[in-house]
């Protein structure tokens, strides 16, 4: 029993890492959005069903070697939390890149152009 539990735990950890990596690398394209929405739907349906049939969840958990249904929900919550963290981080990075590009554009547009600076310097040198 304990060895089976260990296998499930390892599998969960691997799932967490893989899903997080895929989500982080994939960015915010439509395919990944769809995958996330499907996962959210499954999670919601499972949560709703567990209210009406609490035993089913416990039986699935027992089949996986986890023990209680609530533990299964806890593990699933951890996985979805990691996915959430990864996607939020990715989105945040993209936003930061956009803001940087925008700020740089403003900074460069507002600064005097190099050739006007050079001209001003030449005029200064002549007057001295």
């Amino acid at each position, binding site marked *: 029993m304990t060895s089976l539990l260990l296998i499930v735990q390892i599998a969960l950890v691997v799932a967490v890492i893989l899903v997080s990596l895929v989500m*982080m690398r994939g960015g915010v394209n439509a395919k990944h959005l769809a995958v996330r929405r499907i996962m959210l739907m499954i999670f919601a349906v499972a949560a709703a069903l567990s209210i009406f049939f609490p035993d089913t969840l416990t039986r699935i958990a027992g089949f996986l070697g986890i023990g209680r249904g609530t533990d299964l929900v806890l593990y699933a919550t951890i996985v979805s939390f990691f996915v959430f963290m990864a996607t939020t*981080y990715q989105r945040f*990075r993209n936003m*930061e*890149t956009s*803001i*940087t590009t925008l*700020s*740089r554009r*403003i*900074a*460069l547009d*507002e*600064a*005097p*152009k*190099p*050739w006007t*600076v*050079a001209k001003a*310097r030449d005029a200064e040198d002549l007057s001295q």
Partner: protein
Amino acid sequence: MYNEATVVGSVIEDLRKTFPYVVCVDDGSRDGSQSAARAAGAVVVQHPINLGQGAALQTGIEYALQDPEMTSIVTFDADGQHRVIDAKAMVARIESGEAEIVLGSRFLDDRTKISVQKRIVLKTAAVQSRMATGMNLTDAHNGLRAINREVASKLHLTQNRMAHASELVNQLATIKPRWVEHPVEIIYTDYSKSKGQSLLNSVNILAELFFR
């Protein structure tokens, strides 16, 4: 620069004695650093908000690239920790065609007085970038560099904060320019110590590199 009003003026005045064109990227300072820099004779390029050192570096490079007559760029910290004489020698090595990029290293001679802790952190960073890129660097996080036009136009730093130093080395590994290291002195004044990165910041550098 970011809030360096007390020192930036004298740093730029020193630079202007040797270099005709000094560009100072202001990273959203709120202490009047801009007017101090302008008064000292620098062109100030001003970020509307604070973005970080890496972003400022990239902005400065892009500004310099607008000038068709520019042949080499020196990156120089605004807090006065670098020496103009080192920068001059580094540009000479670019202009002579010896190298396309000259990287400053504080470990090539014994001028720089450095604490043991800081030495360990910087040396670890250097070993890390050596293993990641195969470039035999002695100092990984030195802000003093001289870059020729071609290499500068190929750099695209996206790490806004401290990890840009490692990012720059990573990009050099793909650009493969002719590079050399040049011995430079880092002047650790009380001012730069109070502003400089703490040892804990190396954790941030690692985190930014892993989760990009």
